[in-house]
């Protein structure tokens, strides 16, 4: 279901996440703590950010305004 407003929100969320990646919130220098399952901080936060990015891409894929603009009938696979 195309929804330009939600699509714009997706772009904003991605923009904010990208900025955060380069701040000490995600990549603090020489910091291991706090750990999660003994995973060092930048790793587990990095994994979390990656998953959120993919989830936002999923949401974006459902609401992108151009979803129904170029459909064809025959295809190579489903």
């Amino acid at each position, binding site marked *: 279901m195309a929804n330009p407003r939600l699509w714009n929100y997706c772009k904003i969320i991605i923009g904010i996440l990208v900025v955060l990646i380069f701040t000490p919130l995600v990549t603090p220098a020489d910091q*291991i703590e706090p750990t999660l399952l003994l995973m060092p901080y930048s790793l587990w936060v990095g994994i979390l950010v990656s998953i959120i990015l993919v989830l936002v*891409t999923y949401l974006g894929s459902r609401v992108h305004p151009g979803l129904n603009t170029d459909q064809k009938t025959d295809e190579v696979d489903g």
Partner: protein
Amino acid sequence: MGKTLIFVGGVYVLLLIIFSLVTREKTKSSKGYFLAGSNLGAVLGLFTFAATLFSTFTLLGMPDFFRVHGIGAWIFLAVSDAVMVFGILWIGYHLRKRAADTNYIGMSGFISHAYKSRWAGYVAFIGAFLFLIPYVAIQIRGVAIFLLQAFPGFVPMWVWAVGIVIIMLVYSEIGGLKAIIYNDMFQGLLLLIVIWIVAGICLEKMGGFTQMFESVEESNSALLAVPGPKGLFDFQFLLGSMVAICLIPFTQPQVSTRLVIMKDHRSLARTAVGLGTFALLVIFPTLLIGMYGAIYYPDDSTSDFLGKALIWDQPGPLGAFVLIGLVAAAISTADSQIFALGGETRSLMEGEDKKMIRNARIAIVVFAILSLIFALLSSDQLVLLARSSFAGTALLAPMIFLAIFSKQSHNMQWIPSCTLGAIGILVASQLGVIPTEILGIRLDLLLLVVLAVMAVVGNKFK
């Protein structure tokens, strides 16, 4: 392992040939041969994108990168890839819309059409050629070195390299892009299965997930934080890498072609989500293998570590699957790149279609030979060489984005010339003729920013 290897290798080559022969009949026009009929669904799309993007550099380079530089490698590649897939969804839509207005065969032809200038098309081709040939070369070299390590004294490295190039050429020349895409599906699955099995065994030997991090902290705690023990993952490296990686789908023709040939935007959107998931699933096990190396082989050379971790420490038959998985990873990326250069050549040519296809096929053989020569001469720094390739093709982005987003790009004929100048400067810096940093800023990043500003300002005041 020898008998298993011969059996698995035989099945692998047989499947490649069968896929190529099955798809052969349908690929007689340029659109069929170079664009697989431009009708790709989401599932095939996912695997062909994945197999094209995740290569030797992922399977061999990333474990070594984690081992030497630590967990920042996750930010370098996995986070960047997750941002990239959103870019595929966003910018890919606009590229497809513009490509639909032209008879798209390759990015060079598209650029030539948008700028109404053959010169612009040549610049796009030169950029792709200069930076893709080394990228193809490192795929071939990476696996050839690995095979040399696995079978010391059996045959020299160049024989392995020639063998890889021949396999790649045979099936892509026979079946065209459709054969490559079907083979990508098979090879992408193989890559994912192999790397998870290897990582699982490494994890078991390390005593589990939490024990792994305890052991790494004892041996070298700097690996558990950015910028890593050698200080590689600083702000500029991570930012420059993310920008370059996010631009790959639009600046590297083997990927941009796949964007354009998707059946519709819905399929592309599904592919983007699947690709993001695939990226995380394929990079995570390389972290485990890398940490394994950091614990058991911290001071070994790259090839020694990879040989031990991926082959000799694995149960006998699995080593054979790893070898074939590696060959598949290398071939599935390298064939797409070489083939894309053929498509780029075709997109710049005008004339009778059959004759042009024949000329482009000859060009593919020439590109493969050049890559082979480069493979035999290049260094072993797989990830850093790959990154140089990303950074090099990224310089084409402002020119390409202008072609996508501005209908007045033909009024800015100077942009292609400036792009070529920037490529020349970057090549000079890589050859050591000029510094790689200016006032503490990485030259690749600086050049990209300058070109982007010129394109934006030029577009505004044209």
